[in-house]
């Protein structure tokens, strides 16, 4: 059935609120693994020994298996204890809404992240940084600058400040929020120091 419109984040919330109730342990240990196994059998998905698959027909079946998995299983919300479902047409509407190009950063430091469509000669965007690894406060800006100064790096991904002003950045506390704000300040200062102030974070 044709979808009237794509599903946005607000529709997603509404569907979770009215979704069917499932225990999280049933999701983790029964519904999800059983359906994944079913899809593997249904679509005959078997990887060979090579790292990158060379069988395009198998890749097409894997794509359809993923769509079927999403339709059949849905998505679980651990806060509401419910799962939502969506139709195949809604999935394709969502894929159509996805951008094929994204601008990251500003001014002369901006880069275009464009769909490469296979292994084109266009280099992927390089987002350099600690990728969530813990970093001590004393060296944070300097460490970020070590990425920003690399010609290969197009954008920055930050690390996690272990402490702020000596206080541990405890999860779900004001110190966690403060740590995030300090990470951003340090990152901005590092980009300025490296002469690339418009680079995306």
């Amino acid at each position: 059935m044709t979808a009237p419109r794509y599903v946005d984040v607000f529709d997603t919330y509404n569907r979770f609120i009215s979704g069917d109730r499932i225990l999280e342990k049933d999701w983790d240990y029964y519904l999800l693994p059983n359906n994944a196994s079913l899809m593997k059998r249904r679509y005959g998905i078997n990887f060979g020994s090579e790292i990158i698959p060379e069988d395009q027909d198998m890749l097409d079946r894997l794509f359809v298996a993923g769509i079927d998995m999403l339709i059949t299983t849905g998505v679980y919300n651990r806060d509401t204890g419910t799962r939502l479902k969506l139709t195949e047409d809604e999935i394709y509407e969502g894929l159509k809404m996805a951008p094929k190009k994204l601008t990251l950063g500003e001014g002369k430091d901006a880069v275009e992240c464009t769909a490469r469509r296979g292994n084109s000669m266009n280099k992927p965007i390089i987002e350099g940084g600690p990728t969530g690894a813990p970093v001590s406060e004393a060296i944070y800006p300097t460490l970020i600058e070590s990425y920003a100064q690399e010609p290969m790096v197009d954008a920055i991904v930050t690390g996690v400040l272990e402490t702020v002003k000596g206080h541990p950045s405890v999860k779900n506390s004001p110190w966690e929020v403060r740590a995030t704000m300090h990470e951003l300040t340090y990152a901005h200062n590092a980009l300025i120091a490296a002469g690339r102030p418009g680079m995306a974070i």
Partner: protein
Amino acid sequence: MGMKHSDLHECSQLNELKMDMSILNMISAWHLSGDNILVEQMPIVGGYSGGLEETAICDVASTIASFALLNADIHLGGPIHIRWGTTTNRQSMQVAAATAMALDTNTDILLANQYYTLAGPCTVMNLLETAAQAICDTACGRELLSGVASNKGVRMDMVSGMEARMMGEASMAACGMDIHDANQILDRIVSWYEKFYFNIPQPKKFQDCYIVDEITPTEEYMSIYDSSLDILSNCGIDF
């Protein structure tokens, strides 16, 4: 202070095919503000979903969910191995490669991958792990590479800009490469570092492998970097 619309506003789904209210709340603000939205999900290889193929099926489904339910502009993957805690092991790369190629050849969505290596900075193993995944991700059509969280991203200050340099250099060298050729090169590189899984080399913190005042890698790290390039060249990749 703060973030630009053109920065990547990142939040994460939960394992597997799960989310919570915090991700919906963050995205609702970013979506209405016109911010770039990056949704992350690192499937566990050998976790809830099962084996390699089952994990890839869930990975494809989770990636599509980012666009079909969460207004994502780009999806960041990173299959993580339940035993090794890395994305650079052979099985994680198999899942990442299959997922990326299944989506890349059937859609135009933007795909990213993140890097968690076993070894740490100032080691050949870390640079080879990084190069292998960069070759794999690039050959499979991914649009953005994010890293590197060396030493599984859990040890303090065990990261530096040099690992990102290798990620970029290896990616550029792999652009346009035939998939069959990429597979042969990957097998040689992965076979090189797999033998160190139970005996990983001693890493160095950023403070110990950079001249911090000058933000310059030490001579030792530069020598290790050049040795890594030589090994990669012998594996068949042309820098």
